C-alpha cells in the first residue's frame, strides 16, 4: 500500500519534525528495528504523533492507528483480539504512548488491558511532561521540576508507573533508557516474545522541555542512570532484576544541574532529592535477585 516517496534504512522515515536531540525519536527507531514490519502500532496524540504523519504522509512503514489520548491500550487490545480471532498470532501489537497518555489520562484503559492479560506490548516513552502541548506537568513529572503548569517546581512526587504496571501481575515489565540501547533492545525482544501484556517504561530526554543543549540528550539520560535518578530494572513474573548499578552512584546534582527545569533548586532541595534516591535505591537493591551489570 505505501507509496515510498523517500527511502529509509529502517521502518521509520529519517526526516521527522521531532525536535533536534529528541530522545523519543532515538528509541522509536531502535524499537521498530527489533520488532520488524509484522507490527501494528497505536499512537495517541502527542510527540509520537509526529510519526503518524500529516495528511497523506506518514513517517512509519508499518500499519498504524492514531487513537485518542486515553485509549491507546484499549485500541491495541481490540486490534489484538481482531487478529487473534483470525488466527494471526504472529503480529506484534505495539502501543506507543507518552507519559501523559499513559500515567494520567490513559491509566484506566491500560490497567484494564493489563488485568485482562491482553498480549499487547505497551511502551511509555517518558519525557516527564506533556511536551507536545507545551511542557505542562504530568503525573510523571519529577518532584520539583518546573513545567508550564508547575512553574515553581512540581510540589508532589511522580507516579511510579512501572510498579503500578507490575502490581497487575503482568508477565514482563521493565524500565529502559535512551542512553542504553543494547539494554533497551534486549528488553524489546523479551517483551515481543512475552505471552501476555508487557510494559516498557523508557526514559527519553526532551531538550526542549527540560531546558538543555540537544547534544546532551544521551549524556543526560546516562547521567540519570549513573546517579540513580533513573534505575534500569525488569520485573519478570514478579521477580525483580536490576540492570543498572545501585552502588558508587554519582551525586544527583550531576543530572539535575544541566537542566533548566531544575535551575531554581536550592541546595536543600537537591539534598532532599538525593536522600529520596538513596532510599529508593536501597529498596530496589533489597528486592533484586542479582547484582546489576551496567
Amino acid at each position, binding site marked *: 500500500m505505501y507509496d515510498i516517496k523517500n527511502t529509509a534504512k529502517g521502518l521509520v522515515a529519517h526526516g521527522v519534525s521531532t525536535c533536534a536531540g529528541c530522545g523519543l525519536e532515538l528509541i522509536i527507531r531502535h524499537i521498530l528495528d527489533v520488532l520488524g514490519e509484522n507490527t501494528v502500532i497505536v499512537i495517541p496524540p502527542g510527540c509520537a504523533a509526529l510519526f503518524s504523519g500529516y495528511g497523506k504522509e506518514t513517517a512509519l512503514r508499518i500499519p498504524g492507528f492514531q487513537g485518542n489520548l486515553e485509549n491507546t491500550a484499549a485500541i491495541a*487490545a*481490540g486490534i489484538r483480539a481482531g487478529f487473534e480471532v483470525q488466527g494471526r498470532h504472529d503480529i506484534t501489537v505495539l502501543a506507543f504512548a507518552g507519559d501523559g497518555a499513559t500515567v494520567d489520562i490513559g491509566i484506566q*484503559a491500560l490497567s484494564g488491558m493489563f488485568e485482562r492479560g491482553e498480549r499487547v506490548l505497551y511502551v511509555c516513552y517518558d519525557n516527564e511532561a506533556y511536551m507536545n502541548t507545551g511542557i505542562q506537568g504530568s503525573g510523571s513529572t519529577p518532584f520539583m521540576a518546573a513545567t508550564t503548569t508547575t512553574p515553581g517546581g512540581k510540589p508532589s512526587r511522580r507516579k511510579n508507573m512501572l510498579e503500578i504496571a507490575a502490581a497487575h501481575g503482568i508477565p514482563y515489565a521493565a524500565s529502559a533508557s535512551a542512553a542504553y540501547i543494547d539494554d533497551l533492545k534486549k528488553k524489546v525482544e523479551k517483551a515481543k516474545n512475552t505471552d501476555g501484556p508487557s510494559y516498557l517504561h523508557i526514559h527519553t530526554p526532551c531538550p526542549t522541555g527540560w531546558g538543555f543543549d540537544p547534544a546532551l540528550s544521551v549524556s543526560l539520560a546516562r547521567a540519570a542512570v549513573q546517579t540513580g535518578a533513573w534505575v534500569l530494572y525488569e520485573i519478570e513474573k514478579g521477580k525483580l532484576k536490576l540492570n543498572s548499578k545501585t552502588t558508587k552512584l554519582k551525586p544527583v546534582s550531576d543530572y539535575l544541574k544541566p537542566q533548566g527545569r531544575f535551575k531554581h533548586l536550592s541546595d536543600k532541595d537537591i539534598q532532599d532529592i538525593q536522600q529520596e534516591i538513596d532510599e529508593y535505591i536501597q529498596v530496589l537493591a533489597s528486592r533484586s535477585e542479582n547484582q546489576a551489570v551496567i
Partner: protein
Amino acid sequence: MKKEIRRMLDGNGAATEALKLARVQVISAYPITPQSPIAEKLSELVVSHKLEARYIRVESEHTALSCAIGAQLTGVRAATATSSVGLALMHEILGVASGCRVPIVMPVVNRALVSPWSLWCDHQDAMAERDSGWLQFYTENVQEVMDFILIAYNIAEHTEILTPAMVCLDGFFLSHSTQPVMTPDQETVDAFLPPYRSKNLFLDPKDPMFINNLTSPDEFSEMRFQQKVAFERALDIIPEVQNHFAGIFGRQYGLLEAHECEDAEVVLVTMGSMAGTAKYTANMMRKAGHKVGVIKISVFRPFPVAQLAGLLKGKKVVGVIDRSAGLGAQGGPLWLEVKAALPDNDTRVFDYVAGLGGRDITEKTIETIFTGLLQKVNKKDANPDAPGVCWIDTHPDAMSVREVIVND
C-alpha cells in the same frame, strides 16, 4: 428457504440474537442498566461456543468502543452495546468510528441522562449523539429490534455508506418487555448478510496504511463532506435494503411509517415504543369519529425529510412528541427536524415533551395531545404561533416537588 421460528424474547434478547446471527467475532461490552443482559448473554454465548467470538470484558464503555474499532479495523465484525451515561462516555469515540468509517452496529438501550439519576427510558442519551456521524434507527417493538439490527449491518457496511449505526430500543419498555419474535435461521441471515470484509480502511501488516493521523484544514471539510454524502446516499440505500429484507423475511419496513395519515386532520409524529401506543390510541379515536393519524420515525439519522414532507403535505396541524427535553432550544430535537422539513407556513407544528426519565407515555397522554391538536384545527387558538413547548405529562406542581425544612 427461510426457516423462522417464533420465540419469546425481550428487546435485549432480540438484540443479542441479532448480533449472534450477524456472526460478530469480537465483543467488548460493559454492563449498564438496562443494557446489562446484552453484555451478560453475549459472554454466555461465547463461553458455550454458541458464538465463535472473543469476548473482551472491558473496564468502561470508552474502552468498549475503542476495542471494537481496533478489532473491526483488522477485518471482523465487532460488537458492543450501551445505554445512557455509557453512551455519553463513548461520545469522543463515536466520532472516531464514524470519521474513520468503521461500520459498527451498536444497540443503544435508551435511558435518561444524569442528572437527576434515572434508570429509566427517555431518548436524551441517543439525541445527545445525533450529530456524531452515526446512523440512528429507533424501534417500536422487539421484532423491530431484531430486524433493524440485521438491516443496519447491511446498510452500515454498504460500500457507499461505511458508517456506523445505532439501533435504539427504549429501556425497559422494549429491553425488558417479552414479546413474540420471528427469529430467522442462520443460513438465511448469512445470505442476507455476507461475511465481513474491510472495504475501506484496515490494519494489516501485509498491506500497511496509517489510519487517523492529523488532517489539515485543506482536507478536513472534504472528509466531513464524504460523510455527508454517505448520509444522503443512505436515504436511497436504506429503503433498498429494507425492500431486500422484506423480499427474504416478509416484513416490510421504511424510513418512517404512516398510520391513518391520508385523510387525517391532525398527525402526531412519534419515535420508539410510544408509536405503538399512539397508533392504538389513534384507532380508538377514529372509532369515535376523529380523523387522527400517526407517523413513526424509524430512521432519525439520516432524517427522512422528503418522505415526511410528502406525508404531511397540506396538513394544517401536526404534533410531535419529543422524549427528550431540548433545553434552551425552540423545541425538542425531533420537533426541530419536523419543523425544518415543512417549509409550508400553513402547517403548524406543535411540540410535546413527554415520557422523560421513565414516565410512561400512556393512551391518556396521547389522547390529550390529539384532543388539543384537534381543537387547534377546529377553533383556531387565540395565539396559534405561540412559542414554547408543551410539557404534556409534567405535574402542575413541578416547581415545588421538594420542600425542605429551613434551618435558621
